Each structure stands twice: as structure tokens, then as C-alpha cells.
């Protein structure tokens, strides 16, 4: 559906460097990356809103690189919703109608269906400023869907919503993606958001695509240290491999399968590292004594840093557990993690 080939864009301080992506029809594609990676620029390039320096964008096989935005038939939704503040909700939703040849009856039918589906019937006569975040989001969605675009671009659509609305809108997006033929291309900086929505995803770093694939693959098989730490593998170490063993500094760590190179990286999620006061006698192969050298408050959790010889491991512990175990900086503890929790790349 969307085929981006070697796209180059310079826009102020942002630049996209040789971005290539391919998105199948009907997919829910999520583009992730830290702030400033150029995600929104890529989205706006697809919509035709920023000048392209080199490369091509194909939509449904058609080269749209030189087309005006209004000729592309791509809907766009911003995180601030971008409803027209001077128009009532009903006029906002019907804004695009006059540019699409549509008989009155079909239009009215579609309008009625959207209003029902999205539950915004009671808002039609109001102005955007009087609506809540979740309502604005649903109206913006209705406005985009009203002209039945082939593709909808979503620029961090959930980041401005509070938690309760997020869940609601997320389910809504999933439902629409499944029940229609519309391709969704969503940008976010939040990995956990992608987890629940994406059928496929890519991670972007400094204007280039770092990795693309299914969300499971990105999560469990990161291809670079950047991706590994972006998906929450806080323990990323360079290692020497020897059969099923990896050497990190002077530590020997059991890994699930042999690596095809002699050097590479291993990564362990902090939630997979267990802290105990005594050494476990169990089937867990990787167990080391260490000392706590840092505790970072994360709301309900502590991120505990444990130094084992020269290597610092990061582990997540609930506040309750931290109090029970009397964890504090300087305390001696044991850490352990399964060989199967170690990712090798």
C-alpha cells in the first residue's frame, strides 16, 4: 500500500536519511523511536506536507512523490486533534465532503453510521473548545473517516490523552482497522503503545530506520543495542561467545543457544532479574552475588542497580518487596536470571 524508497528529507534540524519502508494494505503499522528521531517528518512526507529532497513514495503502486497533499487521499490525525476551532463538530466532520463526489444520501448514511459507531451524536452542535480530550479524538477520527481515505496517518494520537481515554481510543482504532480496509500508519515514542496495536512496526533512530519487523520480533530479537535498550532491555552488554556461554568482563553467563559469531551482545530485561538475600538453589543457571550501587525511584517500582564485579545489572523490584528485603545502597544481594531470558545478538 505504502512503499517508501530511499527517502531523503532535510527540514530545519531534522533529516531523514535513505528511509525505505513497505506497508501492506490494511496493516496497522507503528513507527517508534525517541523524540527527535524524525518520525513526524516521515509521516508528513508521506502526506506531502514537507518537501522531499530525494527518493520516492508510492501509494497503491502510484508514485505520489510530486503530488499535492490534497491529491493523495491520505487522512492525517495529530496528537492535538487539530479540529477547526471555528466550526461546530458537525461541520468539522463534514469538512472534506465537498471535495469528494458523493451523493447526498450516501454521505448522510456514512455520517450517521460514523456518529453512531463513535458515540458522538450528542456533540454535533458544540464547538471543539468545549470537548474533552477523548471526545476530540473521536471527532477527529470521524472527520478523517468521513472521506474514506485509503490510509490514515496517526501522529502520536494517544499521547495527549489521559490513561482512561487511551485505552478506549486504542480499542476503537483496533476495531476500525479490523473492520475497514484502511491502512493505519501510526507514530509513537512509546513502545508499550505499539505492543497492543501494531501488526508490524519499525524503530527509527536519528532519521534512519533501525529495525523493522513484527512487534514480537522487535521486542524479543532486537538487532542492535539501540533497539535493545529502546524496547526496555536495560541490561545490554558486549560479550565474547563460547558455545552456550557468554563472557561479559570476567562473568560467565549461560545463554540459550550458541552465537554464530565469537563476539556480539547479550541483553536481559530488568524484570527478568530476580533479587534475593540468599543464594537460590534452583534450576536457574545464572546466579551471582553482588552489591546494590543504586536505587532509582519509578513510582511503584525501584530500578535497583547491582554491581557484580565490574558489571552493573539493572533489576526492577516493587516498593513493597524493596522494603521487605530491606534493600538499600551498599547491601549485599544475590541476583539470578534464567538462561532463556538472555537475548543474544
Amino acid at each position: 500500500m505504502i512503499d517508501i524508497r530511499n527517502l531523503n528529507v532535510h527540514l530545519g534540524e531534522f533529516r531523514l536519511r535513505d528511509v525505505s519502508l513497505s506497508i501492506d494494505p490494511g496493516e496497522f503499522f507503528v513507527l517508534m523511536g525517541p523524540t527527535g528521531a524524525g518520525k513526524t517528518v516521515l509521516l508528513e512526507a508521506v502526506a506531502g506536507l514537507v518537501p522531499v529532497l530525494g527518493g520516492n513514495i508510492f501509494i497503491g503502486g502510484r508514485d505520489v512523490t510530486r503530488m499535492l497533499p490534497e491529491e493523495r487521499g491520505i487522512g492525517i490525525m495529530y496528537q492535538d486533534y487539530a479540529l477547526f476551532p471555528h466550526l461546530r463538530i458537525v461541520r468539522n466532520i463534514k469538512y472534506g465532503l465537498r471535495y469528494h463526489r458523493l451523493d447526498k444520501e450516501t454521505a448522510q448514511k456514512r455520517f450517521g453510521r460514523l456518529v453512531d459507531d463513535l458515540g458522538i451524536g450528542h456533540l454535533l452542535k458544540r464547538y471543539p473548545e468545549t470537548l474533552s480530550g477523548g471526545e476530540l479524538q473521536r471527532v477527529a477520527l470521524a472527520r478523517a473517516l468521513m472521506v474514506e481515505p485509503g490510509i490514515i496517518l496517526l501522529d502520536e494520537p494517544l499521547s495527549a490523552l489521559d490513561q482512561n481515554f487511551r485505552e478506549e481510543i486504542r480499542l476503537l482504532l483496533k476495531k476500525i482497522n479490523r473492520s475497514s480496509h484502511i491502512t493505519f500508519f501510526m507514530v509513537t515514542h512509546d513502545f508499550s503503545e505499539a505492543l497492543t496495536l501494531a501488526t508490524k512496526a519499525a524503530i527509527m533512530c536519528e532519521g534512519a530506520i533501525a529495525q523493522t519487523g513484527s512487534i514480537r520480533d522487535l521486542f524479543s530479537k532486537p538487532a542492535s543495542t539501540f533497539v535493545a535498550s529502546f524496547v526496555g532491555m536495560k541490561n545490554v552488554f558486549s560479550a565474547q561467545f563460547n558455545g552456550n556461554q557468554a563472557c561479559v568482563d570476567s562473568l560467565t553467563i549461560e545463554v540459550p543457544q550458541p552465537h554464530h559469531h565469537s563476539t556480539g551482545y547479550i541483553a536481559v530485561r530488568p524484570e527478568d532479574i530476580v533479587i534475593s538475600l540468599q543464594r537460590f538453589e534452583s534450576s536457574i543457571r545464572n546466579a551471582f552475588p553482588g552489591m546494590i550501587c543504586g536505587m532509582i525511584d519509578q513510582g511503584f517500582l525501584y530500578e535497583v542497580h547491582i554491581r557484580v564485579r565490574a558489571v552493573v545489572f539493572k533489576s526492577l523490584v516493587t516498593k513493597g518487596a524493596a522494603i521487605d528485603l530491606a534493600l538499600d545502597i551498599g547491601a549485599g544481594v544475590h541476583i539470578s536470571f534464567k538462561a532463556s531470558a538472555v537475548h543474544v545478538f
Partner: protein
Amino acid sequence: MGRKGSFFWVSFSCGIMVLTFILLPLVEMLTAPSGAMLRETLQDRNVIRSIWLSIYTAASAAGISFLVGTPLAYLLARSQFRGKHLIESVIDLPIVIPHPVVGIAILGVAGKNHWLGQYLHEFGIRIMGSTTGIITVLTFVGMPFYINALKAGFEAISPRLENVSRSLGASMWSTFVRVTFPLAWRSVLVGLIMCCARSISEFGAVVVVAYHPMIAPVLIYERYEGYGLQYSQPVAVWLVLVCLSLFLALRLLALPQKKVS
């Protein structure tokens, strides 16, 4: 602070001084002529004609600024390009040019020695001593104020609204008419009023280009020169009242907007 320090009282005194300095002459002038004199002045055809001409020429300058300045202000608000600062500087130039020099510069290209002047002459357009000339001069001094005010207004409108409009199929023209302009109308008004206020108060540039037909500031100056202070004051009062109502409209329009943003 529980107590006000000496610093506050010094600043406060300076404030009183400045306000007095500004208000005293204006209030004295406004209250000097008697009601009878003010009424009488209003029956003087020359006065009425000159005030109307002032209003008409200032409004025309604002109208021209609106037509030509609006697209330019939009372009400056939305595009980023090398040399943008330079262009903005050029637009601000009329603000710093001494007023008689503005008139002289415009006469320099409108005279018969200049190709532009000859060209205008062939079409029967006269600058020197004509209403056209006054409007040209007032547009020159007033336009920067319109463009700057409107540019700020356009900048305050999220380009995302336009992006969404275009993604829904609207052309740039349609987007401008349906989204951008309706959202910028307050800035347009503020800009028009600022342009009017600047051009209605102009004297030096106009007096060079056209002593006649007489706009109000020139009439006031003539009466002051010819008959003295007393005789010029009533006309001045009426012109100031026109200016003040423009100013009041500006404040009323500009203030609520500030609160919103």
C-alpha cells in the same frame, strides 16, 4: 512583600512622571477649546473635508495593505528560507525613514525624470498634489504595521489545521478561505487598525507630496502657522478624537486575544 522597599517607590515616582508627561499635554489640549468653539469648527467645511480626506486616505492605505499585504504576511509566517530576515528588514524599513524623506523618495520615482513617473503620467496618474499621492505615501508608511501584525496572527494558527484541511481534499486556496482566514480575522482587524492609526497621524511625508488636497494634520499645521495655537487646537481635538477611537478599537480587539493565547 510585606513592605514595599525604596526601589518600589523610586520606580513608582518615575511612572507618575512619565504618565503626567504624556497625559498632561493631551488632556490640556483636549479641554482647552470651549464646547462652542468645537461645535463651530465642525461647521467649517474645510475642517470636515480634511478630516474626511484623512479618514478616506488612511482607509485606502489600509485597503491596499490588505490586498497586497495579506498574502505576503501569510508567506512570511509559513515559509522558512534563507534571507527571510533580510526581507523582514526591508518591510520594516519605512518605519525608520525620516518622514519628509519618505515623501521625497516617492516623488523621486513619480517625477517626469523617472521612467516610472513617465509611465504613470501616460496613464494619467498624478502623485504630486493628488489624493493618489497621499494614499501612496500613507500606504508606504502604514503597510509594515499591517504586515507585521498579520504575520504574528498567522504564525499563531497551527499549520496542522491547514495540513488536515488539505488531507481532506481542500486545495491551498480553499484551505485559506475556509480555515486560515476565518481564524485570522482578528489579526486582520488589528493590522488594519494599526495601519490606519499610523497613516492618519502622518504629516511629514504627506506635506512633501501633497500640501493640497489638505488632510487634517496639514490643515492643523496650516492654521497653526497662519493663525496661532488657539485656532489650530479645535481641529486638533477632533482629529485626536478620531485617532483615539481607532486606538480604543485596537485595544479592545487586541486584549482579549492575548488572554486566550
